[in-house]
């Protein structure tokens, strides 16, 4: 059973890795357009029709035709326009924080919510008022009063 699971996981990984590798070695204009920002309008290239966006599209088409990989093309754009040209910050240096902080914050939030939920549910379980301690003298007095009323 364990062997079969390993084979299944490997198969899924291979299925997912195939398109990713193809996208890197044979990128399309449409996909790079969504990963690059127009420097004058600050939207992704697919949303822009500015002159510089048009020029960038021509550049990307020419580089794809020349056989460049997606990373090569993006690197060349960064050399001319700086890292701001990338829609997602690169996963290194200070920019790494943009990738690391959101999942950590989400995890921390989930933990806080979990702890609060546990505390709340425990708190709800113990909210029933405890019965007052028996007071023998008071009981005897009440019985006496009731007996007197009956008589």
């Amino acid at each position, binding site marked *: 059973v364990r062997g079969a699971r390993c084979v299944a996981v490997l198969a899924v990984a291979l299925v997912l890795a195939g398109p990713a590798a193809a996208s890197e070695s044979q990128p399309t204009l449409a996909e790079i357009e969504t990963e690059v920002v127009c420097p004058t309008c600050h939207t992704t290239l697919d949303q822009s029709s500015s002159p510089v966006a048009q020029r960038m599209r021509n550049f990307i088409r020419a580089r794809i035709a020349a056989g460049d990989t997606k990373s090569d093309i993006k690197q060349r754009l960064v050399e*001319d326009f*700086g890292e701001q*040209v990338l829609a997602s910050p690169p996963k290194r240096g200070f920019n790494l924080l943009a990738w690391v902080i959101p999942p950590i914050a989400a995890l921390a939030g989930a933990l806080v919510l979990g702890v609060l939920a546990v505390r709340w549910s425990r708190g709800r379980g113990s909210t029933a008022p405890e019965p007052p301690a028996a007071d023998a003298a008071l009981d005897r007095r009440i019985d006496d009063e009731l007996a007197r009323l009956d008589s």
Partner: protein
Amino acid sequence: MAVGLRRAGQVLAIGVVLALLAVLLWRVVKDSEGGASAALRRGEHPVAPDFDLERLDGAGRLDLESLRGKAVVLNFWASWCLPCKREAPLLEAAWKRWRPKGVVVVGLDANDFKSDARRFAHRYDLSYPIVHDGPGRLLDDYGLTGFPETFFVRPDGRLASWSQGELSAEEIEAGIRGAFSG
């Protein structure tokens, strides 16, 4: 112990929120200032925001501060900008005419491919210094709204005047004279 930890957590959370608010406030104030062009519109003459950028007309870099003592015509342009094509020959003519009198024309190419900018300079036979600000980091400092825009810098480094859009030869002359007289 638990109370101490809780208090520390609260202090940390408040500190983070205050820091984020401070960053937001700084950004809002910086944006509302409008850069050097807004200061000129208010009648002020601030020191031209400094830069140290890669030269496209040759090797090395150009630092604006190194031009102190000379009047500077700082022209923001890009190769894809149509009015820049008509303006470039006028700037080249002004550079040739005024250079011996202590004027430097600097072309600041922004939001552009370096190769396109070099091709543009070659096509229009530009001999004045050209620097490259691909990401356009200086555009906010100068308060640019488009291309071309030109700033005239006095020899003391302060801005004399600024013009939006394509300049005529007469406007370039007037700008240079204003930089010397102001």
